[in-house]
Every structure is written in structure tokens, then in C-alpha cells.
């Protein structure tokens, strides 16, 4: 079966981004396919390379990065939600004349159309909410 995942909870103030991680990992282990993971709302902060949690605490950015790289996942961060919240890659930083950026591959910034397309393509769209 083809799954897509919509994440809407806060990256650092909710359990949802970790629940979504465990679910996505289990989907892959079960032999199903992940079409796309879409980060929306407060979850976009999971894409920040600047996150520096204490060593003995969960690093949610690293978990998603490793999972995405291992399985070549399409992990998309809603560009409108991200820019508003200060999450931008090098191209967007240039466009907005910012001196630095804080996200990069495997996280891709793209529009909400990617969520609609995921809803159409996938057999199941599972949301992990705030």
C-alpha cells in the first residue's frame, strides 16, 4: 500500500513528530511504500539544522534526516509555513536577502499542492496532529 504522512504538531512542543517518525519507520518495515511526508504548521521546525538539543535528549531533526536518507524519502516542508516561521534553505535565503539559512536536503521546501497530490496518489494519508 502507498502511504503519505501529514505532520502538524510542534516539532519541540508535542510528541507528534516522533509518533509520525515511528509510524513511518513501521510502514517501511512492513513492506509498504511512503509516497511523501509533508511537514506543516509548527512541525516545520523539525527541518532546522540549527537544532541543538542536549546530548541525552531526542534529536528529532537527526531522526528524520537519517530515515529520509536511508530510504530516499520525499520529505517536503510547506514553504509558506516554513518562511513565516524562519525555516529557509539556501535558495530562499538568497531570495529573501538573508545572510544565512537553516534547512537543506533531504528536507525540501515546496507548496501545499504537494499535500493535495499526496492525498490523490496515496491509499492512505495519515495525520499526526498538534
Amino acid at each position: 500500500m502507498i502511504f503519505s504522512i501529514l505532520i502538524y504538531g510542534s516539532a519541540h512542543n508535542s510528541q507528534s513528530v516522533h509518533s509520525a517518525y515511528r509510524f513511518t519507520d513501521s510502514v517501511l518495515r512492513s513492506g509498504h511504500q511512503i509516497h511523501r511526508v509533508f511537514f506543516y504548521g509548527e512541525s516545520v521546525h523539525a527541518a532546522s539544522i540549527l537544532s541543538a538539543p542536549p546530548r541525552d535528549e531526542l534529536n528529532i531533526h537527526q531522526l528524520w534526516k537519517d530515515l529520509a536518507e536511508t530510504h530516499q524519502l520525499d520529505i517536503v516542508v510547506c514553504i509558506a509555513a516554513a518562511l513565516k516561521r524562519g525555516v529557509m534553505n539556501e535558495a530562499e535565503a538568497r531570495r529573501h536577502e538573508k545572510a544565512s539559512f537553516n534547512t537543506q536536503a533531504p528536507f525540501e521546501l515546496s507548496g501545499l499542492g504537494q499535500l493535495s497530490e499526496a492525498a490523490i496518489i496515496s491509499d492512505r494519508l495519515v495525520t499526526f496532529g498538534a
Partner: protein
Amino acid sequence: MTTLHTINKAPSDTSLWQSCLSAILPGDALLMIENGVYAASQTSITRQLQSMHDVSLYLLSADIEARGLTDQIRTDATLIDDQQFVELSCQHAKVVSWF
């Protein structure tokens, strides 16, 4: 065309829980995750859960263990792991998340 409902908030969010419970139809399943698992230990809400006709109840075991509720479950719910969560998602036509 049945639905798997997930809910991730404690029953103190009464507005959410009442909306969720009244949207469940016979044949549907309800999976309590994250703080949603606290419902399994509270008599007020478990009575409502048990009264629903032909609705399967599930608890995510990682969340039950995390919160120390293993010995406090007052409802006929099945503890499942992440892999079984995926299976349930396949068995139902869609997943609706209440948060």
C-alpha cells in the same frame, strides 16, 4: 468503508473527545495514542467507550508504558505496537486523526 480514528489528547479535552466519540460508527476502530491513552484509566470516559456498539478499541503500547498505565487500564482495549498500528491503517478505508 470503515474508519480508523486516532486521538492523542487526554480526556480533559472534553470538547475534542465528545466530537470524536459522536463521529464513530459501528465497524470503526478507535486508537488512543500519546496523551489519548490516559482515557483508558479514567472511569468517566471508559464507560462511554464500552457503551459504543461494534467499535474496536486500541491503545498504543509504547504510550501506555511511557505513562505508567499498564496496570491501570479499565477498558476492553487491545494494546498494539507501531507495526499493528500500520496494519489497522490498512484494514480501514481511511484514518481520521483527532488532536
